[in-house]
């Protein structure tokens, strides 16, 4: 008899989210920004000592004179980005989600958002995508930023989504916070009839029993769980909602109002203050009351460890998603 499974080890800072057999694409944010900057001469890149870990190094290599290394100083980063935007440039600013949301909040709020300045804040390690513990796990970034007026919030799913979101948020004039997956990023949405549109939720697959409303990497998990549940003759619809704010209320209401389904909101974020509560309030305001469940991270400081272990433990792995959905039917 074999003993207990060997314990997994915490991977390096940026763990890949791709499971075995997944297709991936390298540094989709960096490459998309380089392509866009060929024609958008007003775009500059700025970072706080995290170019390599946010894929902005690709931009820095392509346009060294348009890249600004601001040092490990996130408040300065946001303030200087505001100054750049005041002069008509469009800064793409990168750091980790924890630092933008927690440390630099006041600068994002008053120097950037209050004046609706054209700054795109693109942050790696959203939600639970690092095994380093609470210092690096931005489990409440959306809750923090949803309270900020003027700020558009985007949570793309995969490399395909990110590549299309970059030109879309650049075309929008105003401040945007985008959650970033970096490194070898899973690639799957190209298999669906899907195109990223800012402010729009898109139905990726239909199903008669369950409607999953999801954003970010949880859309990937929802699609995989849906495939597994097919074998159990459970029909799962997946409505991908990459723009968290402003929410595509009409599309969400249209799908949630269809009778006979439970509604599950899945997000790589605390169950407090994110997409789940936003959808719940939307449904209640409109007197739509299906059986409603949330898949998200608990209201707790999470453990350090290997991401697969943590995703299982906190209920956002594909297996956990499929099991929880079944338990609610």
């Amino acid at each position: 008899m074999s003993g207990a499974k060997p314990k997994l080890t915490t991977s390096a800072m940026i763990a890949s989210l791709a499971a075995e057999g997944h297709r991936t694409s390298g540094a989709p944010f960096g490459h998309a920004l380089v392509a866009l900057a060929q024609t958008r001469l007003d775009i500059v890149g700025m970072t706080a000592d995290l170019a390599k870990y946010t894929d902005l190094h690709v931009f820095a290599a392509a346009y060294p004179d348009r890249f600004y290394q601001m040092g490990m100083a996130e408040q300065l980063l946001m303030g200087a980005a505001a100054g750049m935007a005041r002069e008509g440039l469009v800064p793409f600013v990168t750091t980790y989600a924890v630092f933008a949301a927690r440390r630099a909040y006041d600068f994002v709020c008053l120097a950037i958002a209050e004046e609706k300045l054209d700054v795109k804040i693109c942050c790696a390690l959203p939600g639970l995508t690092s095994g380093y513990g609470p210092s690096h796990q931005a489990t409440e970034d959306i809750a923090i930023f949803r309270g900020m007026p003027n700020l558009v919030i985007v949570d793309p799913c995969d490399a395909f989504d990110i590549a299309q979101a970059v030109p879309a948020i650049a075309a929008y004039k105003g401040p945007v916070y985008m959650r970033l997956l970096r490194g070898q990023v899973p690639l799957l949405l190209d298999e669906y009839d899907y195109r990223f549109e800012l402010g729009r939720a898109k139905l990726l697959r239909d199903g008669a029993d369950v409607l999953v409303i999801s954003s970010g990497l949880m859309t990937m998990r929802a699609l995989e769980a849906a495939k597994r549940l097919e074998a159990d003759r459970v029909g799962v619809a997946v409505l991908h909602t990459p723009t968290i704010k402003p929410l595509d209320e009409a599309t969400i209401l249209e799908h949630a109002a269809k009778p006979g389904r439970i509604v599950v909101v899945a997000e790589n974020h605390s169950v407090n203050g994110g997409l789940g509560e936003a959808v719940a309030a939307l449904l209640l305001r409109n007197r739509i009351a299906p059986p409603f469940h949330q898949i998200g991270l608990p209201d707790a400081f999470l453990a350090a460890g290997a991401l697969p272990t943590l995703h299982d433990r906190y209920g956002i792995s594909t297996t956990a998603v499929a099991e929880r959905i079944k338990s609610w039917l």
Partner: protein
Amino acid sequence: MADPSTVSRRSNVSLAQRAWRIRRNALRMAAVQGQGYIGQALGVADVLAVSYFHALRYRPEEPLWEGRDRFLLSVGHYAIALYAALIEAGIIPESELETYGTDDSRLPMSGMASYTPGMEISGGSLGQGLAIAVGVCLGLRRKNVNAFVVNLLSDGELDEGATWEAAMSAAHWRLDRLIALVDVNNQQADGPSSRVLGFEPLVAKWESFGWHAQRVDGNSIPALVAAFDAARALTEPRPRVILCDTRMACGVDFLERREKTHFLRVEPDEWDAALAALGEMPA
């Protein structure tokens, strides 16, 4: 053709007269509200007079002229002083003076860029201005606009860590068009700065951060003129700071003698006395 940006400097009105008028404008605004940061406004009036009527290039009729020197007020509650200067500079009409701090006015109590012509940033959250100034300098450099960027901050803002992040950054980027003005009146919300959080030695601190530093009597117009001239003429690729030691309520002697507080109390019947104490406009 005359460069309109220098018209104001060629007028016959002296800098001392400009400072007097700025003080009078500020007192009139505060009288409307019955309150205001008048101690700071009177203290910094000479710095603003020399800024707007000696050092800065701008076009009063075109506040967003691309070639203008940018004046960034990070200490938002000094707005009353800056409005007084902007009125004197012809950027805000004098008729708006009496709307200060009232509903729907373009002159709110704390300065905000979206409200007021000539107000470059929203500065109420203290400690943000110098970081924004760094970005403005980098942006101007990208655009090959050779304007100066002046950031007026208070000594209290030296408590904020972000000010020093920006100070390091300005030296790193060799921002030779950046001039920081620090109003050193040694007065913060909870008392004398030296008791709230000691900031001396100021000149040594800024120099060690890579800045060209000067410390002057901020209520001496000749000293301020010389400091601005030196800061503008310097050829070293370094940011410049002028540390201005000012006296709260300078110019109105009975207020200046009053116990120093961040928010100077003035009784309703004292505004006329304060205007009177300002005396006649200097010759």
